[in-house]
C-alpha cells in the first residue's frame, strides 16, 4: 500500500498530486484515485543547510520524484550522493516533528 493518493482525471487522464477540486487541465471533477508506483526518478533536489525552527539538523535532502506511472511528488531523499535522473524507490516514515507530533511522509531510497 502506498501512503499518498494521487488523482487521475477520468475525462482527460491528467495525473495530479496533491488533490485539486477540479482537473487542472479540463476542469472536470471526477478522478480515479491512484497510487504512485514503487519506483521513480529524481527530477531535481536540494540539500538544505538552514532548516526552519524546530528542525535542528543540517544537510537534509529534498527532491521532486517522478514515479514510473507519472505521479510527481516532493519527498525526503535518503541517499548519500543524489544525482539527477537517479532511480529511487518509495518509502514512508516520519519526516518531521511538529508540535511534538510525528508527521509522516515520503522517504526515497536508492532503487
Amino acid at each position: 500500500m502506498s501512503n499518498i493518493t494521487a488523482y487521475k482525471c477520468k475525462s482527460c487522464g491528467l495525473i495530479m498530486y496533491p488533490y485539486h477540486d477540479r482537473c487542472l487541465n479540463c476542469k472536470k471533477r471526477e478522478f480515479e484515485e491512484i497510487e504512485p508506483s514503487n519506483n521513480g526518478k529524481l527530477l531535481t533536489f536540494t540539500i538544505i543547510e538552514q532548516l526552519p525552527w524546530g528542525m535542528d539538523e543540517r544537510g537534509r535532502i529534498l527532491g521532486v520524484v517522478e514515479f514510473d506511472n507519472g505521479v510527481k511528488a516532493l519527498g525526503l531523499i535518503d541517499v548519500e550522493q543524489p544525482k539527477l535522473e537517479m532511480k529511487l524507490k518509495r518509502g514512508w516514515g516520519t519526516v518531521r516533528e511538529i508540535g511534538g507530533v510525528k508527521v509522516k511522509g515520503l522517504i526515497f531510497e536508492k532503487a
Partner: protein
Amino acid sequence: MRPVFVAGAGMIPFERQDENTLGDILAGAGLAALDDVDLGKHEVGAVYLGNMASGLFNHQVSVASALVDRLALIPAAAERIENGPASGGSAVKNGVLAVASGYYDVVLVVGGEKMRDVIGPKATDIVAAMTHPHAEYIYGLTLPAMAGMFTRLYMEKYGVTREHLAMVAIKNQENGITNPYAHIQMKITMEGILEHPQSHINSPIIADPLHLYDCCPVSDGGAAVVLVSEEIAKTLKKPMVQIAGFGQATDTHTLAEREDPTELKAVRLAAVQAFSRAGLKPKDIDVAELHDAFTILEIAESEQAGFFKMGEGAKAVERGDTRIGGKLPINPSGGLKARGHPVGATGVAQIVDLVWQLRGEAGENQVEGAKNGFSLNFGGFGNNVLAFVLRRIS
C-alpha cells in the same frame, strides 16, 4: 478606465528595526509618501496595505485599520492585502484598480513587514508556511530550498554557473552601497564569495546550489505610494509618472506539478499583460526592478519577462548589460539582495524606486534619462506574480 499616476512615493530604510513596531514602520512609510506630495484639498479615499504575515511575525491583525487610525485618514476605506511575498505588488494593483475604476481619486498604498521580531529559523518557518501544507511544508521545505531545486535545473539547462549567480549578487550589493534605504550596504568580491578556496566558509550553502550571498536577507521595512487620477496629477509639480500597465498571473502551488519546472509561466504571462496594457515592449524599458529573492531569479525573470532570450540572461549579466550604465540596468536599487526583502514591502518599494528613477531623483543610483520602468514582484515560488510598467509623461 482612467489612467493612474503616482503622485507621492516614500520609503523608510530597510534594515533590522528593533526600535520600531510594525505600526511605526507602516506609519513611517505612509507618511514618507504623503509628505512627498501636496494633495491640497484632496483626501485619501482608500488605503491598501500589503503585508504578508503580521499575525505570525508580530501577533497583530487588522493592521490596515490600525494604520488609518495612526495616520488620521479616518474614514478612508482600508484593508490589508495578503499575497505572500507579492503582497506589496497586489496592494499596488488594488490601488490602481480603485483609481482606474473611478471609485477613488486618491489612494494610499503601503507595503510593510517586520520580520525580525522572530529569530532567523522562525522567519524561515513562517515564510515556508506558503508552501503546500502536506505535499511540501511537512518535509521542511523552505523558500530557499524551492529556489535551490529550481536553480539546479536552470543551471543544467541553460549553462548558468555559480559565477553568474555571484555576479548578480556582487552587482546588486554594489548598487546597495549607494542606496541609503538598502539593508545590506557592503561590497562583496568574487574572491571573497566564490574564488578563494575557503570562500565557502564566508558564503556557506543555504540550500544547495544556493549559498548565503545568493539569498536576500530577512528585513524589516516599509514603502508607500500615493496614487491619483489624471485630473489631480496634472495639478502637481513633480514629473508625472503613470502606472501604464500591470499584469498578474498564477501557477501551480507545488513545484512538482509544473510541467516544465524551469519555466516561470506566471512571470511570462504577467509581463506580457503588463506590456500589452501599457502599449510598450521590453525593448522600450530603461530600468527594471526584478524580484531577486535569489540571484537565479534575476536572471530567470529577465529572460522570462522578455528582456533577453532564454539562456541569454546570464550572458547579459556577464557583459555588464544589467549594471547602472549598461543597456538595461536591473535592480539599480540593489534589489531584494541588497535593499532587503521585508516581504510585504517589496512590491511597493520596487514601484517607489522606479518612480524615483523616472523622476530623476535616484541620486547616485540614477539611470540617466530613464523614462520607462518595469517591476516584477514574485509571490510564493512563482505561483502568483505581478508585473508593472511605469512611464514618465513629459
